[in-house]
Structure formats: structure tokens, C-alpha cells
């Protein structure tokens, strides 16, 4: 009973903050609403006992991706008013598509022929069950190659993001370390024989 009440409370917050993301006037407000969305989703995932992913969602999304979003929003000088022109012109199309998508998905849910029992709760987990343990076992045995590919993908993303945004400014005074290391004494120093008592060489 308590779980149901909590579910409805957090689902309401989730939908409200989702509405906030798509209708916010200011991109910063949209990003902060999205942060609330991710937090609420993490709570809902905790409610259906997917603990590891709930924590991963908070760490990865709120901790990394949304901070990146906020950083970019604040770094760029965006004129919001210009981007808001024509906001309501296509809104009706958006709502038509929304209603269609909801009707279609609900149509699938109420379908009995699929053999999907959507009114049943989840089977209770056995005592001493560890979600992270189960995930880890599956991830490092059956999905070992997949996780290596995922790691490679993240590396590619890092390199691509850095390579895209790297900027070489002109007229910047920087050290050329390899030229400094490769220099030899003969390039800089000239040995001169001087006669004792003599004048200029």
C-alpha cells in the first residue's frame, strides 16, 4: 500500500518535471528539471528493486551528463527569445503526436493476445539477493565482450569531444618542449680561442 502511494507520488513529480523540461523558457531551468527527472526515476527504480541502476543513474546522469549540459548552457550566450519564436505555432502538432503515441502504447498494454499479464506484481526476491552481484556476474561473464566494446566507445567519445573542441589560437606564446630538449650545446655556444695579451679576436 505504502509502495503504491510512493509510486504515484513520484510518478506525479516525474511527469510534472518532464513537462517542465519541454516547456521551460530558460535552458537552465530545463536542465534543472531534467535533473529532477533523473532523481525521481532513480527513486522509482529503487522502488522496483533495481538498486544498482538507480545509483548508476544518479552518478552518471546527474553527476556527469547533466553537469556537462549545465556547463554548456552557461558557457554559450544563447538569445532565448529568438529561439522561442514559433513556439506555439507547432505546439498543436506536438500534442497530436503525443496523444497518438500514448493511445498506441496504451493500446498495446490493454491487448490480451500478447499474453502479457500487466496487472501482476513482481515476484518477491529471495532473501540475501544482491542486485549488484547478479548484474556483475552477468556483465563479466556472458557480456564480457559487450562491456569491452562499451569501454572502447567511451574512449572514442572522449577523444572525439576533445578533438572537436580543441582550438589553436594564433599568437599564443607557448614552449616547444621537444625543441628545448633536442637542443645541443654546439647550437648555442661558440668556443673562441683567445690569445693572452692580445686584442679583439
Amino acid at each position, binding site marked *: 500500500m505504502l509502495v503504491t502511494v510512493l509510486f504515484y507520488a513520484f510518478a506525479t513529480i516525474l511527469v510534472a518535471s518532464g513537462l517542465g523540461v*519541454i516547456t521551460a523558457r530558460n535552458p537552465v531551468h530545463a536542465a534543472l528539471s531534467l535533473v529532477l527527472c533523473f532523481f525521481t526515476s532513480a527513486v522509482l527504480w529503487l522502488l522496483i528493486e533495481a538498486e544498482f541502476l538507480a545509483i548508476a543513474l544518479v552518478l552518471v546522469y546527474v553527476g556527469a551528463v547533466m553537469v556537462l549540459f549545465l556547463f554548456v548552457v552557461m558557457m554559450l550566450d544563447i538569445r532565448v527569445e529568438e529561439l522561442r519564436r*514559433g513556439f506555439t505555432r507547432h505546439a498543436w502538432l506536438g500534442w497530436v503526436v503525443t496523444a497518438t503515441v500514448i493511445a498506441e502504447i496504451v493500446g498495446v498494454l490493454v491487448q490480451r493476445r500478447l499474453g502479457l499479464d500487466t496487472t501482476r506484481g513482481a515476484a518477491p526476491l529471495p532473501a540475501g539477493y544482491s542486485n549488484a552481484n547478479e548484474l556483475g556476474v552477468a556483465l563479466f561473464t556472458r557480456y564480457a565482450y559487450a562491456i569491452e566494446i562499451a569501454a572502447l566507445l567511451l574512449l572514442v567519445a572522449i577523444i572525439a569531444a576533445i578533438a572537436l573542441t580543441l582550438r589553436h589560437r594564433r599568437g599564443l606564446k607557448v614552449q616547444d618542449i621537444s625543441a628545448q630538449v633536442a637542443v645541443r650545446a654546439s647550437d648555442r655556444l661558440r668556443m673562441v680561442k683567445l690569445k693572452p695579451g692580445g686584442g679583439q679576436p
Partner: protein
Amino acid sequence: MITLGHMLTLSAILFALSVAGIFINRRNVLLLLMCIELLLLSANFNFVAFSRFLGQIDGQIFVFFILTVAAAESAIGLAILVVLFRERRSIDVQDLDTLRG
């Protein structure tokens, strides 16, 4: 008691909201990226719900990979956005007509 129907309906509403967001914010690239994040979140909801209610862990592993790909996507997307803003001083989708699309 939370049932599979609850979770799937919630994720359907979230998915529909983000599709609507793509339509009504279709000039601002930054908000489009945020709507795509929301869309991926609602897809993840379905994976987690089916994984839990059918008693199989594989759905949650798929969510793990979707998180990875979404993080990579938003990193590269934002990098492209920053480069675009440097070039055009604007992130309006309507200005991106160099390819005459």
C-alpha cells in the same frame, strides 16, 4: 503494489512528453538534446520494468549499455554544439542550412 502496467504507462507518458518536446522546441538544439535524453530514459524504464517483472537480469544489463551510449552521445553532441556556436553564434536549427537540406 506496483504492477507492470503502472511502469509501462508511466514510461509511455514520459516518451510521449519527450516526443512532444522535440516538436515544440524544434529550433533549439540544446533542448532537442535534452528531449532525447528524456526519451532514452523512458526507454530505459521499459527495460528495467520488464527485467524486474519477468525475473531476468538481462534487461538491466541492456540499460547499462544504453546509459553508456547515451553518455557518449551527449558528450559528442555537446562538443558539436560548442563548435557550431563558435562558427555561427547561434544554436538555431533553422540557421543550419549549409547543405540546403
